[in-house]
C-alpha cells in the first residue's frame, strides 16, 4: 500500500536520510516517536504532500512525485484522522461524520442522519449524533473523527496520534477497540504515536522515528543501534513507572474491598 525506498527529506531543520518503509495491503504500521520527532511530516511524505530530496515513494501502486499530493480519485480511498479535533463547529456530530457524503454525493441532511447512524452506533457514539462539537467530550470527538474518516470506506486509514489529547482511560480503550475493529475489517492502518501502549495492537509492524531515522523494530535492535537503544530505554522506564503508579493507585483504590475479603 505504501512503500518508501531510500527516501531523503527535510522537516524544519531535521534531515532524514535513507528512509525505507513498507506497509502491505491490510497491514498495520505503527510509527513510534517522541514529540516533534517528525511523525506528521513522515505522513505527509507518504502522501506526497511534503517534497522529498531523493528516493522513491509508492502509494497504492503509484509512484508519487515529490510534493505533488494525491490525485482526486485517491483522496477518497484514504481516510485520515488528524492529531487535533477538527470537527466543524457549525455542524452536528452526524453532519460532521456525513460531511464527505453530503459534499461528494449531495445527500440531504435528513437522509444523512439515517446513513451515518449505523456507523455512529458502531463507534459507540450513536446517542450524540444531534449534538454539536462543543457539547461533546474529547473521547467522543476523537471517535467521531474516526467515523468521519471511514465513512467513504477507505482502503487506507492514517491515524496521526489517535490517543493524544485529553482522552480519559475509557476513551483510550474505545479508540483502541475501534482501531482493532478496523484492522479486523481489512483496512490498512498507518498509525503515528508517542504512546508505547500502541504495542498492544497485534500483528502491527513497529518503526521507531528516532535521531532523524526510521528504524524498523527487530529483536536485535537493542544491541544494533545506539539511538534506538536509548529510545527503548526511555520507553521502558516510562512503561515501568506507569505500571508502578497504576499498581499503587489500584492498591489504594481497592483497599476497602481487600480488607472486607
Amino acid at each position, binding site marked *: 500500500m505504501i512503500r518508501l525506498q531510500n527516501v531523503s527529506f527535510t522537516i524544519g531543520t531535521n534531515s532524514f536520510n535513507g528512509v525505507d518503509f513498507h506497509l502491505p495491503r491490510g497491514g498495520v504500521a505503527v510509527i513510534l516517536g517522541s514529540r516533534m520527532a517528525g511523525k506528521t511530516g513522515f505522513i505527509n511524505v507518504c502522501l506526497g504532500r511534503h517534497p522529498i530530496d531523493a528516493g522513491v515513494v509508492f502509494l497504492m501502486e503509484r509512484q508519487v512525485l515529490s510534493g505533488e499530493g494525491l490525485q482526486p480519485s485517491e*483522496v477518497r480511498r484514504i481516510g485520515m484522522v*488528524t*492529531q487535533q479535533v477538527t470537527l466543524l463547529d457549525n455542524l452536528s456530530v452526524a453532519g460532521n461524520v456525513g460531511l*464527505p457524503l453530503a*459534499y461528494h454525493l*449531495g445527500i440531504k441532511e435528513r437522509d444523512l442522519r439515517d446513513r451515518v447512524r449505523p456507523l455512529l452506533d458502531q463507534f459507540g457514539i450513536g446517542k450524540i449524533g444531534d449534538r454539536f462539537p462543543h457539547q461533546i467530550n474529547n473521547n467522543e470527538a476523537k471517535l467521531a473523527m474516526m467515523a468521519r474518516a471511514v465513512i467513504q470506506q477507505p482502503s487506507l486509514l492514517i491515524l496521526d496520534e489517535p490517543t493524544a489529547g485529553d482522552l480519559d482511560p475509557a476513551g483510550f480503550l474505545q479508540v483502541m477497540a475501534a482501531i482493532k475493529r478496523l484492522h479486523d475489517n481489512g483496512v490498512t492502518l498507518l498509525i503515528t504515536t508517542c504512546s508505547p501502549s500502541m504495542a498492544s495492537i497485534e500483528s502491527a509492524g513497529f518503526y521507531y522515528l528516532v535521531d532523524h531515522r526510521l528504524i524498523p523494530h527487530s529483536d536485535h535492535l537493542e544491541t544494533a543501534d545506539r539511538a534506538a537503544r536509548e529510545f527503548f530505554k526511555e520507553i521502558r522506564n516510562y512503561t515501568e513507572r506507569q505500571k508502578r503508579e497504576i499498581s499503587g493507585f489500584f492498591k489504594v483504590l481497592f483497599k476497602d474491598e481487600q480488607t472486607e475479603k
Partner: protein
Amino acid sequence: MNKEMAVPPVGVAQAERELTWFESYLNSRLQQLAFWRQLAYLFMEFWMGLRALRGNQRRYVKNLTIHQIIFSGIDAVGVVSTVAVVIGGVVLVQMMAYAPGFQGSPFLMDIITSLFTNEIAPVFTALILVGRSGSAIVVELGTMRVKGHHEALASMGIDIAQYFYVPRVIGLTVAGILLNGYFIIMTFFSWFIISSFQRGIDMPKMINLFVDSLHAGDVFISVFKGSVLGITVGIICIHQGVNVKKSVTEIPQRTSKAIVTAFIATFVINIIISLGWYITR
C-alpha cells in the same frame, strides 16, 4: 578564539546591518507587490473553484452561500438601516439649512442622487461589510487554520477554495449589492420621517425629482461598485484568515490588518471606479 571565526558570514552581516532608507523603501514596496500578487492568486483560486463546481458539490456550496448571504446581508439590515437613516437625515437637514429650495431644483437633486447612489451607499455598505462579515471571516478562517481544519477537509477530498472561498466571496458580493439598494431605500425612508415632522418639504415632488434624476448609469455604477467592493472585501479578509499559521495570537493581528487594508481598498477602489465612470461618461 580564532579571529577569522569571529567574523560572521556575509549573509548574516547583511541581514543584521541596518538598511538604508532606500533599501527599506524598496523592501516595503516589494512586500506590497507580493501582497497584491497573493490577492490576485487567491482570486484566481476562487474563480477556478467556482468554475470547477459540479452537480452535488454545487448544491452543497449553494447552501453554504445562502447561509453567508443571510449572515452578511439579511442580518446586517439593522446596522445598515441605522447608518442610512442617520446619514440621509443629516444630509437632508444640512440641505434644508444651506439650500432651502433644493427640493425644487433638478440640479441639486441630481447631485444628491449621484452622491447617494454612486458614492455614499456603496462605500458605507462596504465598510459595514468589512466590520461585520470581514472581521468574522478572518477570525473563523484563522481559527480553523490553527486547529488544522484545512488539512482535515483536504484529506476528505473537499476543495478548500470551493468550501471556504466561493461561498464567502459570492455571499459578500450579493450582500454588497442588496445592502447597497437597501441603503438608498432607507435614506428615502429617513427623508419621509423628517418631512413628516418638518414643514416646507414637498416629499412627493422630491421623489419625482429623484426618480427623474436617477439614470440607468447611476444604477449600474451603484450595482457595479457594490459587487466589486464585495469581492474585494471578501478576498482581502479570506487572504488574511488563511494566512494565519500556527499561533492563535496571529488571529487578532490578522483581523486588524484585514480591516485596515479593506478600508483603504474600499476608498481607493471607489475613487478609481468613480474616476473611470466620470471620465468615460
